[in-house]
């Protein structure tokens, strides 16, 4: 019961903030809603027993990446708002249609699969105390070591690229 | 107050006493730039040279660069208003040499709205000082890089240090509606 309340409450928050992100008029407002959205997602992770991922979500996503967005939004003091420009080739209605088609399709698949007799509810497994972080770490440094190293190389490359882009070309 | 009914027509600028030796930098200047210095005077220890306005820059450059003068500091630029005189303003420059530790005052006489060559090219320090003279007396400086008012507001009318400017300022007109008074300048 408790989990149901938590789930529906959080789902409402996540989707509500998501809607605000894509509809907010000011980009700064979007960023704030994005942070709130991420925080709600982090709480969902905690409910799902992924504390480490929840903390990383807050630390890296909300505390790092989104701050970067906020920086950029504040730095580009926009002289022309993007929405002012109108592109005749743009098909907004088609976009909405496509998006709702995607949503309908995915939901249909999930609902169909869930109502199929083979579906089993989540096994009630209480999260192992102190185990989650350790398990994730263990997997990262054994089975997924190569992926981990590749990810770190990717970050390094991104860092170099970002510095190159941000530098003023003299 | 105690202002004289008949204003004086100029400073006395007394000639130096005969028994006093003239400082070493004056005669080389007079020979290098003949008839630039119209008068040399001395009073309570201060030497003053009165210079023709059109020769001012030459004289100043000489005073700045000549070995025996080397006036590297322009301490002060100011003016005095003598309304009865045709060339009503005395613009005076207080110069000092940090090498020889001597001073001299150079004066030029100009009429109302007659421009004085700016000495900012010789001493950058004259910049604000000349702006202040422009602000307070309305004497324009030729070749000044940034001739704006400095102490008074940009919209101010008149030049407060002139003798014909009342101590009380523009008076009731300003007090009643300052913005109107300040704006007058831009109206036809």
């Amino acid at each position, binding site marked *: 019961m408790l989990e149901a309340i938590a789930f529906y409450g959080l789902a409402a928050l996540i989707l509500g903030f998501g809607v605000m992100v894509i509809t907010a008029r000011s980009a700064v407002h979007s960023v704030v809603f994005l942070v709130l959205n991420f925080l709600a997602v982090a709480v969902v992770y905690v409910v799902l027993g992924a504390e480490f991922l929840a903390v990383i979500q807050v630390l890296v996503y909300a505390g790092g990446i989104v701050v970067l967005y906020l920086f950029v939004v504040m730095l580009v003091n926009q002289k022309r708002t993007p929405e002012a420009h109108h592109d005749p080739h743009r098909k907004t209605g088609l976009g909405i249609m496509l998006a*709702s088609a995607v949503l309908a399709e995915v939901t249909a698949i999930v609902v169909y699969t869930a109502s199929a007799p083979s579906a089993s509810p989540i096994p009630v497994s209480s999260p192992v105390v102190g185990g989650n972080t350790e398990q994730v770490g263990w997997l990262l440094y054994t089975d997924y070591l190569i992926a981990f190293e590749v990810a770190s190389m990717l970050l390094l490359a991104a860092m170099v690229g970002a510095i190159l882009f941000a530098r003023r070309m003299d | 107050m105690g202002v004289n009914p008949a204003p004086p027509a100029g400073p006395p600028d007394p000639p130096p006493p005969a028994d006093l030796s003239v400082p070493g930098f004056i005669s080389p200047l007079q020979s290098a730039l003949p008839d630039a210095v119209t008068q040399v005077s001395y009073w309570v220890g201060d030497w003053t040279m009165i210079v023709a306005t059109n020769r001012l820059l030459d004289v100043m450059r000489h005073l700045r660069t000549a070995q025996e003068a080397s006036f590297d500091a322009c301490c002060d630029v100011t003016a005095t208003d003598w309304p009865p005189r045709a060339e009503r303003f005395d613009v005076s420059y207080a110069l000092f040499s940090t090498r020889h530790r001597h001073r001299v005052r150079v004066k030029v006489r100009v009429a109302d709205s007659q421009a004085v060559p700016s000495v900012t090219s010789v001493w950058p320090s004259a910049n604000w000082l000349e702006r202040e003279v422009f602000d307070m007396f309305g004497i324009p400086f030729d070749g000044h890089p940034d001739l704006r008012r400095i102490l008074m507001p940009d919209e101010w009318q008149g030049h407060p240090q002139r003798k014909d400017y009342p101590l009380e300022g523009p008076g009731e007109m300003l007090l009643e509606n300052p913005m109107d008074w300040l704006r007058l300048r831009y109206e036809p």
Partner: protein
Amino acid sequence: MHLYPITAYHYLVLAAALFALGATGVMLRRNIIILFMSIELMLNAVNLNLVAFSRLNGHVVGQVFALFIVAVAAAEAVVGLGILLAFYRNKETLNIDEVNLLRG
């Protein structure tokens, strides 16, 4: 499909909805920054999926993948925003429709 008790499928539906929201944002908005943020929403939807599957399967591999996605998202944000700043300097706008340098 029922409202109670909560199963992994509920989380999957939530993730799908979030993904669709992100997709809608990408299609509807012209501000590049908001486009980026919509993409972040979609990435989060994927993460939500992975964590839900990890719970369903009872091991943490899903979470490890989610971590990689976070790393990729960080890289994407950094490079994307770098490009965006460079673009902004040239064009003084953030409109996606004006990103047409390759079109000539």
